[in-house]
């Protein structure tokens, strides 16, 4: 498979791992945060953490859209289906996120009209096919998915589809990174910059991290070789005493991002004053709401969406894990009350969430040792 196989070549991967070991050879600890949930997923999917020396530690950041979605927003979205007879549509990722009254899938099992879509355009298409029903698209994601929501709203306007609206939970990545950097428990040495978000916003917006916080950033792709190269580039900066923003993912990410996508975002969305992030609390200027001129397609304006505040279970320590202050397995609920099948916190829901990715790791570490002893590693 082009653009995939060459980045999974065992020899190149070994070479990159060797380079990391050389660069990291010292008695200090390197704490690197991968901001993006896609990276967290890839690291565990390919077992890349097992290739790193013990003094290079990866910390999973807040870039998992499902993980930072506050429970109250989901309840508000589902209430549109329950109270207004709307069809609730969302990406598959949202379907297993627990709200106060259960997950969207549990609502569906009880008869609520919940439908999984692969794109917001699919939700618009449902609205066109069922003109007597109202269709709400429950939009989540960072700058990666927000442009497709923007284009869908514009298309709804062009086609004059009025039985369709969007409940926007879109968030922006930079305030989240800033919140992590400003957190008193912050002990990070560098960032693996998000690959997909950067295809839209480019690599320049991260420059404040290097300039003001003096932490290096490398925007990185998602294949095993990408990630190892990104880590090596960070370590090289630290070794050479440089602090700058570099782009490992130049085959996809341009320094200035995607102008057309940015224009669409700006035309349809504006920044909210405040938005709640699950585990991180309220962050100012961190989320996107639909502009007045598209009010017809804004579920919040049309339905007076209730502002439901739901506190997470007291014992859940999602916030500390999200900020990198706790490792997933150090949470009191991890692996007991909270498992991928019965998640309490959202970090356990998505395969991009730190806890779900971490689940089974302990077993694997034991496994790796015994397999190596048995000569099974190939």
């Amino acid at each position, binding site marked *: *498979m082009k653009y*995939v196989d060459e980045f999974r070549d*065992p020899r190149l*991967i*070994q070479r990159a*791992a060797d380079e990391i070991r050389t660069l990291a050879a010292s008695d200090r600890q390197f704490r690197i945060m991968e901001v993006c949930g896609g990276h967290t997923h890839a690291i*565990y*999917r*390919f*077992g*890349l953490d*097992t*290739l790193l020396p013990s003094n290079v530690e990866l910390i999973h950041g807040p870039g998992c859209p499902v993980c930072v979605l506050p429970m109250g927003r989901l309840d508000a979205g589902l209430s549109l289906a329950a109270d207004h007879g709307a069809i609730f549509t969302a990406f*598959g990722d949202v*379907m*297993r996120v627990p709200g106060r009254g259960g997950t969207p*899938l*549990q609502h*569906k*099992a*009880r008869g609520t009209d919940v439908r999984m*879509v*692969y*794109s917001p355009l*699919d939700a618009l298409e449902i609205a066109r096919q069922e003109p007597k029903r109202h269709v709400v698209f429950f939009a989540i994601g960072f700058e990666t998915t927000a442009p497709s929501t923007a284009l869908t709203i514009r298309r709804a306007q062009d086609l004059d589809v009025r039985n369709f609206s969007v409940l926007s939970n879109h968030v922006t990545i930079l305030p989240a990174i800033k919140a992590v950097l400003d957190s008193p428990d912050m002990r990070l040495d560098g960032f693996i910059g998000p690959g997909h978000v950067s295809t839209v916003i480019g690599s320049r917006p991260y420059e404040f991290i290097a300039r003001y916080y003096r932490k290096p950033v490398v925007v990185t792709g998602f294949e*095993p070789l990408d990630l190892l190269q990104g880590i090596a580039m960070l370590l090289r900066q630290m070794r050479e005493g440089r602090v700058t923003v570099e782009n490992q993912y130049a085959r996809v990410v341009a320094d200035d991002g995607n102008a057309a996508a940015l224009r669409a975002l700006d035309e349809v969305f504006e920044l909210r004053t405040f938005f709640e992030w699950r585990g991180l609390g309220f962050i100012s200027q961190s989320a996107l709401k639909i502009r007045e001129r598209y009010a017809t397609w804004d579920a919040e304006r049309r339905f007076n969406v209730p502002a439901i505040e739901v506190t997470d279970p007291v014992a859940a320590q999602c916030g500390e894990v999200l900020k990198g202050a706790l490792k997933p397995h150090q949470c009191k609920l991890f692996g007991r009350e909270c498992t*991928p*099948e019965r998640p309490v916190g959202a970090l356990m829901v998505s*395969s991009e969430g730190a806890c779900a990715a971490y*689940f*089974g*790791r302990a*077993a*694997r570490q*034991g*496994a*790796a040792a*015994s*397999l190596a002893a*048995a000569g*099974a*590693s*190939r």
Partner: protein
Amino acid sequence: MTARTLESDARGGIPRTATFRDPQIEMAHGAGGKATRRLVETLIAPILLDRAAQLGDAAVIDVGRQVVAMTADAFVVQPLTFPGGSIGTLAVHGTVNDLAVSGAVPKALLVTFVLEAGLPGDILEAEVRAIAQAAQHAGVVIVGGDTKVVEHGKADGMYVTTAGIGIPDPRACLSASAVAPGDRILLSGPIGDHGVTVLLARGQVALDAELRSDTRSVWPLVNRMLAAAGAGVRWMRDPTRGGVATALNELAQDTGLAIALYEEDVPVREEVRGVSEILGLDPLHIANEGQFLAVVAPDYADVAVAALRATPGGEQAAIVGEMREQPTGTVIACSSYGTTRVIDMLVGDPLPRIC
């Protein structure tokens, strides 16, 4: 799943301690993964099955002087037809394959239809003909069945169930308790074709791929493998819902052993890999309807693979892993660049109804 009642196994048996606490039935309970296993093991089996029964693909029972294998399967796939097959062909192959991987020669089927009022007659006729043709191909006779009709809106066109009977093949001496560390894991061919084909046939994803469901009887392959290496074959399973990952996890849990899976040796077509990459699915969790996994003693493994590869439709058969002692009950994928990861059972329901 059905019970093997003749086999007594000190390690196995159905666990009685857990109780089913899920408040309601959800789609995940039918997806073939963890929730399905919990439903069967903690609610259905404890009430209905004998305490010594083992969960497997078919029950082996003694009727008078004859030992027979019995199984049943239900089909609710949407859409009813897709490239490479339809609900009718699946209904035959699903039951035939459950018998085949239980080491039984498939002999006869009963077919039951639940039809929705409003179903066009020609669609039903096409499915009945598909069943007849698939049965003839698979060498089984249809000996009866039942028909029910429900109101419009109460079923998606049609549901089909089949029950099958087979004769245990004397060359097969399957027993999960005989599976030992060092045994090899064989896979009959490329995985994920069925699940991805059905997903694309639903038309909800704007992707095109030249793919066909792998729905077929696996008996010709099983037959050749038993002929060549029957004494070394210890366990077989067709990895349908929940995919290879779920079938291997069940094996690991049932035997109390570990499985090292050589992920890069698992055959996966480019199209299936591509669609999986784009949609974030793992081919190991995607359903198959014409493949099987086998555990074979190390001395017999090469002969067994050679026999499969020499059989039409088995050209891509491969050794994809081996049994290990530790860590018990776990499936570990090993990559060629030295990393490992735990392969879990399917959690939830990644795909719409696929069989």
